[in-house]
């Protein structure tokens, strides 16, 4: 494969395009609402109407507004049909001939769509994830070609540093710096790992990216491998995402057939292979050292850092680990330049971020917004606010490692630093909206139960601490606790945070701490008066109030 062949495939694909396209969402959300039957119905209706030369029915990835699925969009008219059922197919095809349809239409000019800026999701809902030609028609793999033939590995790393891209997995470590460290680490053998173990409950961005545009992740990984000098990559995917796994397998097979993965890629001396590793339902495996243990076929328990994976990772070799979304940003940065990317977002957080908007909100689905967008714009304008006349009470970001942001702090811009200041984190991008019916103490207990179950058991603060905190939270909910228990809970939160081995334990108290900070009255309402004070004299003890 050389550039000419690549461009030929692209032109052939573009030339074969028919005047009308009906794009049907084939991501997991819509598939569970029967979108396969809808697509089959559309194909049959097109054939029955004798429009096979005029209309293409294309299965595409996520079209973002998941709550209204299955979604079908007609090009070039732009009409978006919602909650389509198989019998609706004929009338949708009929509209192409000037007919009318009763199928509910969405408004593509709703703020939900117009406020989005797509970099990672640019191909999502447009290209067919199961055909590599479709990705090539959208300029796919040209970034990899440019890197292999016109740039040195050092140029690539410098470009990434300049772009200001930060890790999208949650912690926000500068990607260019990480790549540079792995590139400089001595060693014959190096590895690139894509962390697709999206364990945060309420987050489904990585799943959607893998289902909708797997090739952009593969291309990003190949560019990273060239930059750091690796020849083997792994994608660690959750077993809960069977569709993403099968699309990745298809994508890797197609890329290998075309010579875009494997040996001598684009007729250069660069070799790169990618294997899939399937997780087995352990949240802690999202932590990088635990993930590497799991790739090696062991129990997924973390180990102390340093040494960091960049120096000693998989089988003791220097290893680069990045999140799905981080890799998916890379091809666009190479194609369009670091300056273009750096012009989007805020001073310290560049580019866009994909969020999975869910919970008590009207429009649930995927959104991609520039960094620095206000939370209020996201939940009220794009999300359409709480349904059924409800009132938004809090927004939870960062899953079990994050915190709850109260409604009066919604004017906060979304970037790494602002969210940390509020006691939450950017996290991988799950955003759960809660309304007035949600009890914050129960939410804190829900996340604590999660961390308690998922603690790997290696270090004591996390293993025993989460159990005790869960016990205290349960005691509070059962109205059996006193102020002393609350003080004990806060003390434990602090201890577990500072003494746990890995990210799971260190962040496990976050939901409790942040709800205690913003919704303390809900805890206090559940407490019993402490009639048996420390000296049994009936005095009420006040817990220390943190600053």
């Amino acid at each position, binding site marked *: 494969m050389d550039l000419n062949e690549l461009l030929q495939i692209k032109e052939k694909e573009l030339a074969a395009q028919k005047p009308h396209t009906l794009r049907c969402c084939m991501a*997991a*959300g819509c*598939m*569970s*609402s029967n979108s396969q039957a809808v697509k089959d119905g559309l194909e049959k209706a097109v054939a029955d109407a004798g429009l096979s030369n005029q209309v293409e029915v294309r299965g595409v990835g996520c079209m973002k507004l*998941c*709550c209204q*699925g299955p979604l079908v969009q007609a090009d070039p008219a732009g009409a978006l049909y919602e909650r389509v059922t198989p019998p609706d197919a004929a009338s949708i095809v009929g509209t192409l001939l000037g007919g009318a349809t009763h199928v509910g239409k969405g408004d593509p000019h709703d703020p939900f769509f117009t406020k989005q800026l797509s970099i990672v999701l640019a191909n999502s809902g447009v290209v067919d994830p199961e055909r590599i030609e479709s990705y090539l028609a959208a300029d796919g793999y040209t970034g990899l070609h440019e890197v292999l033939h016109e740039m040195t590995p050092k140029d690539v790393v410098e470009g990434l540093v300049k772009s200001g891209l930060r890790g999208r997995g949650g912690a926000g470590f500068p990607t260019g710096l990480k790549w540079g460290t792995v590139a400089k680490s001595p060693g014959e053998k190096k590895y690139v790992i894509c962390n697709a173990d*999206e*364990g*945060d*409950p*309420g*987050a*489904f961005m990585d*799943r959607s990216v893998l289902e909708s545009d797997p090739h952009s992740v593969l291309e990003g990984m190949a560019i990273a491998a060239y930059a750091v000098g690796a020849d083997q990559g792994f994608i660690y995917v*959750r*077993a*809960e*995402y069977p569709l993403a796994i099968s699309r990745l397998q298809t994508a890797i097979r197609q890329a290998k057939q075309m010579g875009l993965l494997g040996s001598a890629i684009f007729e250069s001396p660069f070799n790169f292979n990618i294997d899939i*590793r*399937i*997780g*087995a*339902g*352990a*949240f802690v495996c999202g932590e990088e050292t635990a993930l590497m243990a*799991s*790739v*090696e*076929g*062991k*129990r*997924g328990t973390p180990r102390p850092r340093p040494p960091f994976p960049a120096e000693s990772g998989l089988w003791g070799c220097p290893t680069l680990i990045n999140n799905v979304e981080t890799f998916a940003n890379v091809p666009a940065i190479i194609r369009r330049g670091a300056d273009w990317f750096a012009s989007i977002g805020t001073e310290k957080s560049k580019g866009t971020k994909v969020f*999975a908007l*869910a*919970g*008590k909100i009207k429009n*649930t*689905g*995927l959104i991609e917004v520039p960094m620095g967008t206000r939370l209020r714009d996201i939940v009220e304008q794009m999300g359409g606010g709480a349904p059924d006349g409800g009132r938004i009470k809090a927004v*939870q970001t960062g*899953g079990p490692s994050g915190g709850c942001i109260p409604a009066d702090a919604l004017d906060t811009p979304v970037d790494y630093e602002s969210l940390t200041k509020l006691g939450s984190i950017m996290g991988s991008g*799950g955003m*759960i909206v*809660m309304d007035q019916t*949600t009890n914050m103490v129960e*939410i804190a207990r*829900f*996340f604590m139960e*999660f961390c308690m179950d*998922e603690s*790997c058991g290696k270090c004591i603060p996390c293993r025993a601490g989460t159990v005790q905190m869960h016990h205290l939270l349960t005691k509070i909910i059962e109205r059996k606790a006193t102020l002393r228990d609350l003080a004990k809970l806060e003390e434990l939160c602090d201890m577990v945070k500072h003494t746990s081995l890995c990210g799971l334990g260190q962040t496990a108290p976050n939901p409790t701490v942040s709800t205690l900070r913003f919704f303390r009255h809900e805890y206090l309402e559940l407490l019993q008066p402490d009639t048996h004070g420390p000296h049994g004299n009936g005095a009420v003890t006040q817990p220390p109030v943190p600053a």
Partner: protein
Amino acid sequence: MLITLAKHKRKTAEQVLQHPSGDKRFKILDTHMKRHQFKADALIEILHRAQELFGYLDNDLLLYIAYSLKLPASRVYGVATFYHFFTLKPKGAHTCVVCLGTACYVKGADKLIAAIQDVARIKPGETTPDNQVSLLTARCIGACGIAPAAVYDGTVTPRQTPESAAEKVKGWLSHGPERAAAN
């Protein structure tokens, strides 16, 4: 290798090694292990395949995998019990997985579980005595846009209510009591 094992263990080991005892599933598993060149790092992949073939991982099967991959049995058992996805007990004829992700929880997944518990009289993680239905929970199946979601026999079903979930499970259970009545 066998000589180093204790006598009673050797007996088990011999039985296990001779396993291609006509059960074709072991042959399929062998082919899969061969594809991974019997490498120890493919253990999780192989356990996935084994569970797919046999439905669950019993001790016999774990020992077979351990000897094939030249791994200590403790390592294989350790991995199989560490990950939630692997089960060492047989599942019922039907499985119902209720998603307990945050989005589903906020939208009332706990009520789904309560409704199913009422109907099937089992707790999450248990199987009905007649082996008809297993009730499981998942940490998040990534279907948050269509919460609350449940997976019935592998099919993700959107926007569940306690009533719809109870009805689905009741359908699976329906031949249970009848059979009991016939006896």
